[in-house]
């Protein structure tokens, strides 16, 4: 058995074990996506796994408890769980590239490394730039620690890996590249034990591994089955690679909603248009509605006395065509949490931040097939612009 075959056999064994009873129907572009508490107790998190290898070798490790996030781009792991050698990415000046990655609860500091990434039965994405969060030897620069709390461990995050499969290939893109306008300062160049903000070339930036697959690289299709109003202990769904590339990822008549350069669509809730996001990386529906009571326990979730059914209009950006009204229900979070479920359909909270957005977190995905089309990776009829598309039926 040669290296390639050994690797394929290992991956197939992991895949079959994880798919269990579904293995017979599995296609090579399907990863299981499971909503479960995970080792750190996570509500409404959709987890999958991947295999990463030292580039060009069969020295590999599994990344389990890998949170699927359609609101970010690229694979991130933690130094604490990294077991194999991954070569660093260097910039043209010979500095090691590191990143201060912005999330809302924290910034993630760590070096950029190369890995071969194996997902489902796909041939590998080679030399993918990934981030190793909290990697030793690269001190956190003051300009990064000034952006808020820092992410330092899987326990803090609630996951061991983050698989960002949103609508862009690179996490930052042209703004962070040399000569880009309005550099937001995510990337750093490290040498001699210190790191300074520096541009990073497009091909050196953390990259959505889906965009680097040799095939089925147009994006992903997230399918989660519908669950009851009280939630479910676990939910078994699928993360399917490619769009219009296999029999199981056809768009058909599903309407395409383009996003802007930030990955957001238009959403109208209570007669105001705001930025909308389809986001498996957030565990509730987040929007502002002062008429819904908050929970008395201080948890920050909505706690209506009786469930309330609301609607919002989602529309393509910037044209507003197509558009579609989507209905959703908000239930009393304190009552929901009396169960020991890990998945909840009717969990919601205020977005905060003024009236600036509507975050359709994981509850939106239950009972739907949601396509995430990567910018410049899709041909007609979807076209090159980044998009989301969705239809009923998970």
């Amino acid at each position, binding site marked *: 058995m040669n290296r390639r075959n050994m690797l394929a056999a290992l991956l197939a064994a992991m895949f079959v074990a994880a798919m269990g009873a579904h293995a017979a129907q599995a296609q090579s572009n399907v990863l299981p996506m499971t909503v479960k508490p995970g080792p750190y107790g996570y509500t409404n998190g959709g987890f999958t796994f991947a295999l990463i290898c030292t580039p060009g070798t069969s020295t590999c490790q599994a990344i389990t408890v890998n949170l699927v996030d359609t609101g970010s781009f690229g694979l991130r792991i933690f130094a604490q769980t990294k077991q194999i050698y991954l070569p660093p990415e260097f910039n043209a000046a010979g500095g090691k590239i590191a990143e201060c990655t912005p999330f809302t*609860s924290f910034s993630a500091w760590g070096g950029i490394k190369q890995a071969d990434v194996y997902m489902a039965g796909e041939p590998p994405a080679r030399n993918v730039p990934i981030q190793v969060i909290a990697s030793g030897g690269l001190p956190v620069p003051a300009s990064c620690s000034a952006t808020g709390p820092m992410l330092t461990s899987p326990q803090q995050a609630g996951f061991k890996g983050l698989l960002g499969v949103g609508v862009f290939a690179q996490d930052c893109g042209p*703004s962070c590249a040399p000569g880009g306008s*309005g550099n937001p300062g995510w990337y750093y160049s490290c040498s001699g034990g210190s790191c300074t903000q520096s541009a990073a070339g497009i091909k050196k930036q953390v990259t959505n591994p889906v965009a680097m697959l040799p095939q089925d690289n147009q994006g992903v299709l997230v399918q989660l089955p519908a669950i009851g109003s009280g939630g479910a202990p676990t939910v078994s769904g699928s993360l399917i690679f490619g769009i219009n590339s296999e029999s199981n990822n056809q768009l058909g008549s599903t309407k395409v909603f383009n996003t802007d350069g930030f990955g957001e669509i238009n959403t109208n809730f209570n007669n105001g248009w705001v930025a909308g996001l389809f986001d498996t990386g957030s565990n509730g529906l987040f929007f502002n509605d002062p008429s819904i009571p908050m929970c008395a326990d201080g948890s920050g979730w909505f706690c209506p006395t009786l469930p309330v059914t609301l609607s919002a209009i989602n529309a393509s950006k910037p044209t507003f065509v197509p558009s579609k009204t989507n209905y959703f229900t908000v239930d009393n979070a304190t009552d929901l949490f009396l169960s020991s479920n890990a998945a909840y359909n009717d969990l919601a909270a205020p977005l905060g931040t*003024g009236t600036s957005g509507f975050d359709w977190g994981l509850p939106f995905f239950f009972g739907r097939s949601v396509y995430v089309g990567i910018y410049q990776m899709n041909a007609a009829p979807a076209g090159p612009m980044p998009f989301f598309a969705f239809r009923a039926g998970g």
Partner: protein
Amino acid sequence: MLFHSALKYGYYFDRMKEENSIALIVRVMGAGVVAAVLAMTASTGRAALGQAEGSIATDAIGARAAVEMSPQAGFTVNRFTDATSTNVREYAAPNGIVFAVAWDGMGTPDLSRLLGAYYGDYVSAAAGAPAGLHRSRVVGQGVIVERSGPMRAMRGRAYVPALMPAGVDESEIQ
């Protein structure tokens, strides 16, 4: 809101066409804001949350555009774009005290500078709050910090309820 939307589209075209959008953004700002544009170059102290407004320019170190002051009913909004191209707004009460800051962009501003004495309150309260990748709300002893957005469109605001001027609602902090 109109102002905010217009600004976003400035960035939209930047990302899609990779044009230099700074000039475009400045044009949009000029057209959208009916307010005196005051170039402030003096550094006279700090203007962090809870501090006096008189030295907003200190927070705008490395700013890509002049600080704009927009007087509104009950408060004044001071706008600038920081070194990470983040749009920052500082809200000052009639007594000159900054009671809120808000920001949006691909970058994250220097929150230790903008939140000033309240930064430690934020960081320690965040340690006990639920972790969120694209939405978080942290209620500290004195400050409330809310952040949201996908990784290319981060938005946030921080405000001190005890410093809010009478008659001003937190929903006016955009």
